[in-house]
């Protein structure tokens, strides 16, 4: 009988020990960690290459001049703190030179005795890109005389930079001063350039400031179906001036958010004004029909006929030595 009691006691003891250990074990063991999870299957198809990537457009074509003109002399302005690099006008300069014309640079920094009007009197065309200094009264008179006598003038402006450095976070609002500098010259011909860039927010993968333009009237816009401009301003056209290039579709002015189709280039006789200089740059020169427009610009510059070879006549008020910049 006592054996049976002992056996029963043994059974109970075993159960108590084993079950007790099982009960205590979790407290000793601690929390179990989560199981490793499988990678997610998310719908993020917007990142797939077919959906995300933008293919660059083709770059092809040649810059050609069609004007059958005798060799002319073209003066490029670097004397008004022009915001342009030599490399940026290379395609135009190279085309002119390749076609037998002479290119000079008006640079008073190299020789302070150099006067604009004297340089013009030996030239057939004058090009100024993004001048940041104003032209003096004497220079403006000289240019008027020059163009009245058959000399050709091309003014190009874009709002790109005013030359002030804000670092990479220019949130003070970089107002361009360059446009106002040339308006003193261009307004006499019925054209003025705006100060705020044109943009086009759209879904076709094009950068917002890169707009499409198309030729309108006149020799400058001939054969220009589509030119791409990266930093264009609208050009106001009045008087005898005609629109040569305008935006291909609706674009928006950055400052006041007004939308419309705006002129970006205009011609008045011997003077042409273009509200963009980026279309000429090597990176963009062969995109779309840009090379056609560059060729038209080159043709325009060499197609004038100076009546008075020495125009502009030297100013009687005496331009004298170049003084400090006047604003």
């Amino acid at each position: 009988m006592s054996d049976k009691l002992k056996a029963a006691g043994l059974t109970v003891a075993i159960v108590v020990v084993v079950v007790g250990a099982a009960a205590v074990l979790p407290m000793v063991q601690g929390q179990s960690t989560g199981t490793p999870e499988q990678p997610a299957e998310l719908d993020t198809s917007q990142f797939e290459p077919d959906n995300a990537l933008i293919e660059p457009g083709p770059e092809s074509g040649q810059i050609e001049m069609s004007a059958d003109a005798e060799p002319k002399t073209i003066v490029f302005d670097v004397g008004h703190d022009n915001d342009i690099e030599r490399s940026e006008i290379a395609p135009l300069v190279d085309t002119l030179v390749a076609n037998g014309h002479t290119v000079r640079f008006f640079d008073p920094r190299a020789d302070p005795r150099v006067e604009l009007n004297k340089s013009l009197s030996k030239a057939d065309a004058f090009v100024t890109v993004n001048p940041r200094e104003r032209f003096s009264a004497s220079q403006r008179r000289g240019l008027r005389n020059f163009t009245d006598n058959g000399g050709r003038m091309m003014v190009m402006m874009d709002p790109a930079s005013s030359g002030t450095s804000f670092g990479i976070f220019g949130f003070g609002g970089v107002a361009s001063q360059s446009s106002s500098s040339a308006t003193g010259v261009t307004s006499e011909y019925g054209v003025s350039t705006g100060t705020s860039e044109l943009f086009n927010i759209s879904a076709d993968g094009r950068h917002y400031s890169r707009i499409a333009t198309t030729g309108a009237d006149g020799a400058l816009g001939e054969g220009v179906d589509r030119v791409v401009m990266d930093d264009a301003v609208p050009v106001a056209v009045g008087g005898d001036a005609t629109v040569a290039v305008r935006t291909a579709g609706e674009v928006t002015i950055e400052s006041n958010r007004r939308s419309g189709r705006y002129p970006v280039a205009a011609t008045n006789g011997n003077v042409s004004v273009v509200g963009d200089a980026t279309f000429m740059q090597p990176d963009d020169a062969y995109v779309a029909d840009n090379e056609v427009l560059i060729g038209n610009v080159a043709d325009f510059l060499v197609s004038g006929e100076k009546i008075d070879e020495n125009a502009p006549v030297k100013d009687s008020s005496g331009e004298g030595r170049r003084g400090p910049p006047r604003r």
Partner: protein
Amino acid sequence: MSRSTTSSGGSVYVLAVVVGLLASAVLAPVAFQATQPAEPDRVMVLTYDGGISGTQVDEAVDSLREARTNESIKGVVIEMNSPGGGVTASERLYKAVKHTSNELPVAVAIKAQAASGGYYGSIAADRIFTQPSAIVGSVGVFTSKDTTFPSSYVRSSPDKAQNRDETTRRTVEELQGTFVESVLKERGPNSDHQGTTLQVDRSEVELAHTYLGSRAVQNGFADELGGTPDATAWVAEQAGLDSYEVVRKDANPFGGFFILQTSEGTELVVKDDGVLRTTQTQYYALAPDRVPTIVASEYDGAGTAAASDDSDSESDEAAPSARDEAPALGGVDT
């Protein structure tokens, strides 16, 4: 007589052991289960305060993974206070939030700003709560233009370490495209979003405006006005919780984007453990106008890689504002 008693006693013991083991086998698992500590239901509140860089996102991604794998966590609230940061890091945060919201209710409570990358990290949530004057939006990217490769080096090709402007522009356009697509996919009119969907069209989103919280709620960039308590209560309701605990996680104890102003100009830097480092990112989904500025002349140790020991006071002043919300959250069962 005694011999037979012994042998029958032996077999009784054997029987006892067998019975005992069998009984244990049945009862032990019951005891084991019964003494597992009871896990309360939990809502994780993950605070994201500062710029979005790789290391900061790592912590947030880890916390979100824990939320998904820990069975006691039934929902997530992300307290967002970020002006954004690197594009790649922002995409990672977006995907982590999206993965989590596929499995748990996720709400975002915008404290002061969810701009650019901060907004990217918020769009995949099931609901966005915002303070009325918080800044929301800025769906766009930027990058610095390449500087010219120094001529004192010889490189193997013209494109080594230097991109054409055109390539940079295209990349910016591509990154903007995926950002905008993500916003539309999560909150657009054709999305699955249950709250307020976007009331503006794609071109408006592409303009990268920022909106005050009140405006964001109106145009669908956010869902409703509210703070962390509202978001937590909403998540608990979605998860069907009557009572729950709140688990607080902080995604970025150190670090943040700052604009460093020196006499030579401005630069974007990341403050990591009290030291300012040049950021590795090239493309930013960042609203720099929302980023604090450190003036180098007033900052000791600016620009150095060595640890700076007296930077803490400056870092407290320059750091984005700390939590404003009082942590009175949730209902705990008594």
